[in-house]
C-alpha cells in the first residue's frame, strides 16, 4: 500500500463513509412451509373458539355497562342546594396535558350567585376532540366540582358539537336542589358548603316561586 492510499483510507475513516462494496452480505435463511402438525396446532385455536361463549355485544342495540371507574364524559357537580361547585379557578385547565379545557372565572354578585363564595366559573368548555380522558383535571379540582361519568358515547358529525359548554357538563338538578343563581343558604358561609353542612335548598327559596325539583 502506498503512502497515498493510506492517507486516502484515513480520510475515509474520518469522514465516516464506508465503502458499500466492502460490507459483507449475509444470506438470511428463509423459513420453509409449515409442517402438518404445526398447521393443525394453529387451526385448533380457531376450531376450539367455535364452542366458547360469544363475547360480541350488539352495540348500539345492547349497551354493556362500563367498569365503575371508567373515564367517560365529565360532569360539573352541584352542592346539595343546587349551587355550582365550580369556582372557575382553572386548575383543571392548568393540569390538562392536552389543553382541552378552557375556563374563565367570574364574580358572584348578590343578583347572580352561581356558586358559594366570591367566584364562579363563567365559561367552562371541554374540547372532546382533544381530551384524552386521563383524569388529571379531576385530581386537580379543589372543590370536587369536576368528576367523570361513565358516558362514553362521544361522537358527533360536527367538530363544534364536541366542544361541551358549561350547560352540557353541569350535573342535573336532583331532589332538594334549586337552579342557580340563588343566594347562599342563610347563615352559611362557603366553608360550610365545603364541610357539607348544607343539605338542601333553603325552604324560603323554594317558596319564592322558583320551585324545587
Amino acid at each position, binding site marked *: 500500500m502506498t503512502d497515498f492510499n493510506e492517507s486516502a483510507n484515513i480520510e475515509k475513516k474520518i469522514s465516516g463513509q464506508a465503502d458499500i462494496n466492502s460490507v459483507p452480505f449475509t444470506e438470511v435463511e428463509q423459513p420453509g412451509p409449515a409442517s402438518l402438525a404445526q398447521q393443525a396446532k394453529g387451526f385448533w385455536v380457531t376450531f376450539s373458539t367455535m364452542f366458547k361463549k360469544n363475547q360480541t355485544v350488539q352495540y348500539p342495540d345492547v349497551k354493556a355497562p362500563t367498569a365503575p371507574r371508567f373515564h367517560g364524559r365529565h360532569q360539573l357537580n352541584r352542592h346539595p342546594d343546587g349551587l355550582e361547585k365550580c*369556582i*372557575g*379557578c*382553572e*386548575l383543571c*385547565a*392548568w393540569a390538562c396535558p392536552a389543553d382541552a379545557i378552557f375556563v*374563565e*372565572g*367570574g*364574580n358572584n354578585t348578590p343578583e347572580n350567585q352561581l356558586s358559594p*363564595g*366570591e*367566584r364562579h366559573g363563567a365559561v367552562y368548555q371541554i374540547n372532546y376532540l382533544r381530551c384524552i380522558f386521563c383524569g388529571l383535571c379531576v385530581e386537580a379540582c*379543589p*372543590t370536587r366540582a369536576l368528576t367523570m361519568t361513565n358516558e362514553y358515547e362521544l361522537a358527533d358529525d360536527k367538530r363544534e358539537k364536541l366542544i361541551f359548554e358549561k350547560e352540557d357538563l353541569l350535573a342535573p338538578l336532583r331532589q332538594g336542589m334549586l337552579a342557580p343563581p340563588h343566594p347562599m343558604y342563610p347563615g352559611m358561609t362557603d366553608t360550610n358548603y365545603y364541610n357539607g353542612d348544607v343539605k338542601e335548598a333553603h325552604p324560603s327559596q323554594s317558596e319564592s316561586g322558583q320551585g324545587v325539583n
Partner: protein
Amino acid sequence: MTTTQDSAVAVEMITVVIDGFEVSVPKGTLIIRAAEKLGIQIPRFCDHPLLDPVGACRQCLVDVEINGRAFPKPQASCTIPVEPNMIVKTQLTSPVADKAQKGVMELLLGNHPLDCPVCDKGGECPLQNQAMSNGRADARLDGYKRTFEKPINISSSVLLDRERCVLCARCTRFSAQIASDPFITLNERGALQQVGIYENDPFKSYFSGNTVQICPVGALTGASYRFRARPFDLVSTPSACEHCASGCDMRTDVRRGKTLRRLAGDDPSVNEEWNCDKGRWAFKYVTALDRLTHPLVRNSSGELVQASWPEALAAAAAGLKGKRAAVLTGGRVTTEDAYGYSKFARIALATNDIDYRARVTSDEERDFLAAYVAGSSTTYRDIDTADHVALIAFEPEEESPIVFLRLNKNFKKRGLKVSAVATKGSIAMDKLKADFIKVAPGAEASAVAGLALTAKSVILVGERASESAGLFSAVAALAAKTGAKIAYIPRRAGERGALEAGALGTVLPGGRPVVDAAARVDIAAAWGVDSLPATPGRTSSQIIDALASGDLDAVVVGGVDAHDLPHSHAVLDALKKSFVVSLEIAPSSVTAVADVVLPVAAITEKSGSFLNWEGRARAFDSAVADSHNRSDVRILSMLADALGNPISLGTVTSSAREFNQLGSWDGARVQFAPVAAGTAKSVSGNDALLSSWRRLLDMGTLQKGEDNLAGTRRPTVAVISTKRAESIGVTTGQQVRVSNAHGSITIPVLVEDIHEDAVWIPRNSFASQALVALDAVHGDVVTVVKA
C-alpha cells in the same frame, strides 16, 4: 439590579463572604442584595429595592458573623448593610438560618388562608413559590385561621383581602415614600393588624395600581382583573404606554385577543418599576368603543355607508387629487405613523400644511418646538442631578405622572428645590413643597424672568405654555441667561415623535428646517423626489381657518377630536365644508363630518414606537396577534399609491427604518423669534380670569369603558380664592356658576390657594368641559357667581 454609578464618584467597595463565596459590593449595600449578586436567592416579602428597608416580614433571616463574632440569632438580611470582614451564611449553608426561615414561613402561613384557587395571585405568587422552596411540607398549626370580611374596596379600583395579608408594608411604604399619598396604613396591633384606609378617606391616589403589582401575596388585587385569568393563560408583550409623554415601559397581558391587564415594566432610567393608574387600567377603550370595522364613504345622499377598501381609497384619492389639502395628525400617533403623515403631506399632497398639535397652540410654540425641542436631549437623569427644577405651565402629577414621581424621589432623597410658576396651587406642589410663584393667567412670562436658576437647573415647560403669550420666549431667554436645561413635556404620547418626524409645518424629519434649501434637498434625495414644497406650512388653527375661508379644500385627519381644539363649533363647521378623510379607530366628532373614514389599528393591535418627552424611543410589538386592522402608515401608503404619488411605506418596519436612516439635522436650527411677554387682562367684580388644565383621570376618550378607574377621579370643583369666596358669598362645597357669553358650568366650589383674579376649573372633567361649554381658553374672562 443595576449598580451603575457615576464614574466620577469613587465608590468604596466592601468584600464580604456569603455562603463561602467572596463578593465585592458598594458600601451600604444590603446583605440580601449582595447575595443576589452571587445568584443566591434569600426568600423575602417586604424587601423591595426601591423602598426603604423595614424588616417587617422576617422571612430573609440569615446567620451573620462580623470580625469572628457571630450574632446570637439569625438576622434579617434586608435591613443590614454589608460590613468589612462579614461572613454570611444563608439557608443554603446554615441549618439555623434554614430552620428560622421555615419557622417564619410556617407562622406566616398560620393565618394565611388556603384559598389559592380563588385568589388572583395564584400561579404568580411569591408566597406560593417561597412556601414551596423555603417552607415546611406540612403545617403543624391546628386551629382556626384569622378571618376578616372580604374583600373591602380601599378604592374603586383596588380591593383588599385582609386575611391574605402578610403585613410586609410594601403598599403602605410605596404610598408614603414613592407616591406621597399616605392614604393607607397599618391599623391595629397584634393578630388583628391590618392594612386600612382612613375613615371616609378612600385610597384616591393616581399611583394606587402599583400597590397591587408589588403586593407579594393576593391581599391587594385590581378590581378590573379580579378572577379574569391565570398567568398561564396570558400572552405577555412588552409595550409602551400610549397615554402620556412620560414614556413608561409596560407589559400588556392578552388572553384570546383581549387585553386583560397592563403592568409597569422595569426601566430604571424612566419609570423605575412604577406607572400611573391611567397607564395601568385605561386600556378597555380598545374594545369598549364602538370600533370602526369597515371603511365608510359618504354617498350622494350624504350618508356614510360601508365600502370596500379599494372603493374607499379611490373615493379618498378622488377627493384629494389636485386639491389644496392639509393634514392634521393628532398627538397620539406613533413615530412611524407620524413619519408616514409627514411624508404623505410632502409627497402625496405636495404641502407643508401639517400639524400634529390638536389643542390650544400658538405660532410662538411652533417656533420654540423647532428651535429648542426637536433633537433636544434633556432627560430624567438631568432631574436627578438638578439643583433646582422650575415648573412652567406644567402640573406634573396630572400631566406627566412619572415626571412627578421622579421629582418626588429627588425631593425626598435630597431635598430638590422646586419652583412652580402657576395660577393655582396643586396637590403635587404641596407634596414637593414647591416654591409657588403665583401669577394671574396670561402674565406668566414676566414671572419666569425672575427665577433664580443656575446651569445645573432644569426648566420643565408644559404644553400649556402655548396659552400664554411670550411664555416660551421667556423660558428661552431664562435658559440662555442661566444656562439651565429646557425640557418640554407635552401631554400626549405621540407629540415628541411627531415633531421629530416632521409632522409640523416648519420642520422636516429630524428637525430639518423647511426654509433651509439644503435640508429640503437632503430629504428630497432620501425620498427620491425632485423637490419638496418650500413654503412653511400652516398651523392647525390656520388650517382650520383656511378650510373655513375656502383657501384649503380638503384635509386628512388622524386621531383628532374636534373638542380638543379651541372653538370646536367653528372647527366642525370648517370640516363640514371641506373634503375630509378621517383615519380613526372609532366614530368621533370628526368621522361624523368626514367624507371618507378609514379604520386604523388601535395601539394594542399594531407595532410602532413612541418618543417620550426626553426623545427616548420605546418600540413595541402588537400585543394582539390576529387583528385585521392596520397602522395609519400602511393606509397612508395605500392612499398615496391611489393618488399616484407613492410614499412607499408599506409597513411600520419600513417606516421606522427609513426614519432612523434620515438621522437628525446637524445644520442650523429654525430661528426662534421671541414674542413680547403677555399681560393678564384686568378684571373686577364677579369677573375672573379662567385657568384650567386637564386632570390625569377625566373624560378622555382613551379612558372609556373603565368604570373602576373613573371612581378614583379627583372631584370636579371650581377653585377660587378666599377673597372671591367672601365677595360672592360661598364656602367650599357650595355650587358656583362659571359663565360667559357662550355658556356656563355649574359645579361645587373649592376655596384654595389661587390668584385672586382667577378661577380654575378642570378642562375635561365630568360636568366641566371648559373648551366645549365655555369655548374659553386660559386667561379669558368669565363670570363667577353663586349658583
